[in-house]
């Protein structure tokens, strides 16, 4: 007894959709009829109208842009410095061992613990948030760059050396391209870490940004629907980032088959 291919493909979709719609429906009914207290849990249509309000007032766009800038600055620096550190560690064991405890320390504690100190040092503006994003993102990128380079087969490097390639040429023509998949995995990890610390940092103290909006609405008397909207915005942002970097990855590594 086996099911047809069609049923096989559709089953997860149908069951998943059913369970989600059921959930939404119960939520909507329970909330809008005040079976549960809607100021605590809100309900889907109320959240939709909060979304409309946030867009029309321009609040959402303005704060999203600020968060984007903070994230972009920190993350760009993390990519450049992370890859550079990773290459240095792969080339010299001495350098790696010298820096290892500091890296392990930064990787063990969640970076959010440094945010209050960063605020003391750099103020409550965007700089402290960008640096927090940088700190939490550059370590996984560096680690994955190192492992990526170490996993490249010796024969690649030897082949280039045989053609008289210089050290720089070997780095850029063999090591980095070969390590791309691993670096990209590190970047994907870094995205999640960066977003968490960004939002948490803005919630801790800031003048603007999505996190700031979240903390404003969390103390507002009827801010629950807005919080749901903002959560969705942040989730979408993370999703788009991951998607973007997968696209970049397949552009950078046309020799791999992507499924």
């Amino acid at each position, binding site marked *: 007894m*086996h099911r*047809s*291919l*069609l049923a096989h493909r559709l089953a997860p979709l149908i069951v998943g959709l059913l369970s989600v719609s059921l959930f939404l429906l119960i939520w909507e009914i329970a909330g809008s009829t005040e079976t549960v207290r809607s100021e605590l849990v809100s309900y889907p249509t109320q959240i939709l109208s909060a979304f409309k309000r946030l867009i029309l007032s321009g609040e959402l766009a303005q704060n999203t842009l600020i968060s984007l800038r903070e994230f972009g600055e920190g993350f760009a620096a993390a990519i450049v410095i992370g890859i550079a550190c990773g290459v240095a560690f792969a080339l010299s064991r001495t350098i790696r061992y010298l820096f290892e405890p500091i890296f392990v320390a930064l990787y063990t504690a969640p970076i959010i613990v440094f945010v209050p100190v960063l605020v003391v040092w750099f103020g409550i503006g965007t700089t402290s948030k960008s640096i927090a994003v940088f700190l939490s993102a550059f370590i996984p990128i560096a680690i994955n760059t190192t492992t990526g380079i170490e996993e490249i087969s010796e024969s690649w490097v030897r082949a280039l050396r045989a053609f008289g390639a210089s050290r720089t040429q070997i780095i850029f023509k063999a090591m980095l391209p070969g390590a791309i998949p691993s670096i990209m995995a590190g970047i994907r990890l870094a995205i999640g870490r960066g977003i968490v610390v960004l939002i948490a940092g803005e919630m801790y103290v800031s003048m603007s940004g999505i996190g700031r909006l979240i903390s404003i609405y969390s103390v507002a008397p009827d801010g629950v629907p807005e919080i749901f909207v903002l959560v969705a915005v942040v989730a979408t942002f993370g999703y788009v980032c991951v998607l973007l970097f997968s696209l970049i990855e397949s552009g950078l590594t046309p020799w791999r088959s992507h499924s």
Partner: protein
Amino acid sequence: MAQLEVKDLSLSYPGSRSGSTFLALDKVNVSIEKGEFVTIVGPSGCGKSTLLMLVAALLRPTSGAVQLNQKDVTKPGPDRALVFQDFALLPWRTVIKNVELGLELKKVPSAQRRKEALKYLDMVELGKFCNHYPHQLSGGMRQRVGIARALSVDPEVLLMDEPFGALDAQIRQVMGLELLRIWERERKTIIFVTHDIDEAVYLGDRVLVMSASPGRVIQEVKISLPRPRDLSLRNKAEFTAYRETIWNLLEKQVQANGAWRQDSALS
């Protein structure tokens, strides 16, 4: 009455396109007496493993039936122990724990379980390795653990799917002798799949020759060589004659089918 009866057994697998089916076995009939040693040869992909899986009831037949002592076989059970082609040891269990598995499932108390398992491990000469993990053993040793595991549940029928497939020629012969010795003592019914014609003749009371896919039993060759057998048998004229007969039967099937494994063509 035969102990094991395979009656008009057919099996279709789901085909590559949705809705289509692939006929792997086509009305197979076999009947096997208690204590008999039956060997099966056939071209690769003709359904030998499928037949054993059906007897073990790991698959359900599309039509036909398997009967053990006149009762339909519907679910797997320790009365028919299977020795897997790829050993299938649980990697996280030590050798002795692997052998104990079947006994554990039969709810044998742990002290007795250990004793039994050790007995069978000694039988396959692995007593010293009882606390090793499978990855620390050679292929031949792993295969012997698989055999000990199957014997330990004291099955009525032992199903062996190319149990020596992973071994080199030398060990293969030793293991064959070993199996004969065990069989002569324990008198289990054995169904033994192999692609080595010599092995099939040397071990079996009867050799079943199967056709290319869809698998059917095209001929049963009774082997009336005296027992106990030993390696010198291979040079006897009767032995060569049996080998010749089976080789000719198979050659036709292989030509029909295209490919025959190289190693058996050489043997």
